[in-house]
């Protein structure tokens, strides 16, 4: 390649490290380039294939002590999380009665309660969300009744539980070990299989 052609290309690409990078990537490929591309894709595939192995290693790491909170239950009493912490695993659902995904989880939670209800404490906390009407005892009771949920349902009227657990949307689930530490926070819907897997991990099954 002649010198004038080279300098014209250099001017087009610009000076400095960015220009050098552009010149390098505008050049014809070296003989080893296809091999390097194939190697990068192979490496990504291997990394993806390793994910199931990493996920399969129990138990999930603890995220710290579960913050305590109190809520007004739909039965008219006050429930405090501290009454269960350290005694048995706890599963908390943060939800809103108008949330379609919480509704989609209704029957899955009922099935999970039938299997784990005697070994894991189920608690549902109705939270206030921006843009949604505040949950009321009537709306939350109607929601629980619709799916036949028999566990504790309460209202987080002061948004303390929501803030402590950094709930930004519903549903959000908290899995708490028997020793009172948070095993996992899960924002969004989950499948029946995932729910069963995480609850099974809580009880060591």
């Amino acid at each position: 390649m002649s010198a004038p052609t080279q300098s014209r290309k250099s001017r087009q690409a610009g000076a400095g490290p960015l220009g050098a990078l552009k010149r390098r990537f505008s050049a014809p490929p070296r003989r080893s380039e296809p091999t390097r591309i194939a190697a990068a894709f192979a490496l990504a595939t291997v990394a993806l294939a390793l994910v199931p192995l990493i996920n399969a290693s129990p138990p999930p790491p603890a995220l710290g002590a579960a913050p305590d909170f109190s809520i007004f239950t739909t039965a008219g009493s006050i429930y405090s999380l501290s009454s269960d912490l350290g005694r048995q695993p706890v599963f908390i659902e943060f939800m809103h009665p108008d949330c379609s995904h919480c509704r989609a989880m209704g029957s899955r939670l009922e099935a999970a309660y039938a299997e784990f209800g005697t070994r894991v404490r189920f608690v549902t906390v109705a939270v206030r969300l921006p843009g949604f009407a505040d949950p009321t005892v009537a709306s939350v009771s109607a929601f629980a009744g619709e799916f036949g949920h028999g566990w504790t349902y309460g209202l987080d009227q002061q948004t303390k539980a929501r803030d402590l657990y950094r709930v930004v949307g519903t549903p959000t689930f908290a899995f708490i070990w028997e020793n009172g530490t948070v095993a996992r926070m899960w924002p969004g819907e989950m499948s029946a299989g995932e729910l069963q897997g995480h609850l099974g991990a809580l009880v060591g099954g």
Partner: protein
Amino acid sequence: MRRTARKAPLGPEEYLGLRMAIASSFIGFTVAGVLVLNHFEVADAAFCSVGDWLSCNTVNRSDYSVILGVPVALIGMLGFLAVTALSTARMVAPRRGLGLRAPPLLTAAVGAGLSFGAYLSLVEVFVLRVVCLLCVLSLVAFAAAGVALRRTLVVPWPRKAPRGKEGLPAEGR
């Protein structure tokens, strides 16, 4: 000048575009791989399941996430792999074999990927009413590959060029 033509049968901007398309495809391939794992409940992708309208789990495990028993994300992975293979072939040997036929095949692959991605995005917004961030990222990767390949995609289906014409000798001799 003959030597120059043999070393660089494509323009510098096309080489740059092909490499950018390969980089975009690599990102898209990885993202689609995470979505495949998420579909089979191996990876939870909880980081992108936030709130009532932003959930990868909801979209990626819906009825729309499978076509004829094949996960859509897996089809996306294969699409990105195809774009990479065709771009590499175009870059290495643009005047023979797959490299010669790469432009129309790339046009078809990118067009199909973008159309399919757009359809799934419409399903997300208007049917499921939930947006899957990783799916959007995958679509963006396809779009980026399409933009990067703009100099390659416009080439029509190649006819067998007479050797020695247009100052472009056959390669690899």
